[in-house]
């Protein structure tokens, strides 16, 4: 199964959720600012990469974990992608899409805009790390997704 954590630009909230899922960030306590800032692929995606699925790794159950930036209108895009795969014979259970952006707080959203859209990395990246205040929501989200992916 392929599990897609989705957000706007595949740089912050989806990457954080995917790294929690893969164990690169703690799942049993709040991550530190340093851990958030230094997690793999955090605040790295360029604008031309929005829309390109990026592999983050494979979890212990063999599910491929990916991040996907869908810009605005994620719900419409997820439904369209699901219908597209179904029309081409891919079972719905083979691709699960999860919206990680809903768990991002204001700081992460503003920081992401400053860093990725305006290019103010010096301001945006530290602001994004302020996502640590909403970290428990990401952990809870990942737990729910893992439950969803459990076989049987």
């Amino acid at each position, binding site marked *: 199964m*392929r599990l897609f954590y989705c957000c706007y630009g595949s740089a912050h909230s989806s990457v954080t959720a995917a790294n929690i899922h893969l164990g690169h960030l703690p799942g049993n306590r709040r991550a530190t600012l340093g851990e958030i800032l230094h997690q793999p692929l955090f605040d790295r995606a360029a604008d031309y990469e*929005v*829309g*390109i*699925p990026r592999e983050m790794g494979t979890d212990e159950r063999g599910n491929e974990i*990916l991040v*996907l*930036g*869908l*810009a*605005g*209108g*994620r*719900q*419409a*895009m997820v*439904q*369209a*992608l*699901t*219908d*597209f*795969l179904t*029309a*081409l014979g*891919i079972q719905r259970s*083979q*691709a699960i899409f999860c919206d990680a952006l809903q768990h991002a707080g204001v700081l992460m959203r503003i920081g992401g805009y400053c860093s990725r859209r305006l290019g103010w990395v010096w301001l945006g990246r530290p602001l994004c790390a302020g996502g640590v205040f909403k970290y428990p929501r990401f952990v809870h989200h990942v737990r729910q997704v893992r439950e969803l992916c459990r076989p049987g």
Partner: protein
Amino acid sequence: MLVIYHSRGALPARQAAALHLGWVTPADSQQEVFERLGGRGAFATLGLWALGCDQAGRTVYAFGRASRPDVVHRAFHGMAHLFGLERDTFLLANVGAPVAWTDIGVRSPDRMGLHRLADWLALVGLQRGWQDAAAATRTMEERLKARGEA
């Protein structure tokens, strides 16, 4: 093969897809075209909307996006690559501008319950959208020709 038209909001894409299939022409009544394309249901429907098969047996779809067209293309091609699907199993064509102001003008009144206003704006959008729809179907024809499938 899948032929997929997409636009900001669903109506322009449906208009182009229906033109591709020969269901509608610019000479038709806008109200009839609007009803044929799903009417108010088009405002809220998410996902691919299958219209039917063209003369060559290709299934024609339309969907409304709120993302940029380049994001749509990267996402679809990215999915195809991940799942090992051949590139020639589908073709995408964007209809209209990246942000269609008529779409915003339609969805907001519809959500506020101003359905008659939304319907009227949709008809105006359809009337003005024939050029974009024709351009999108021409683009699709050229791509199909390039693949030797026209």
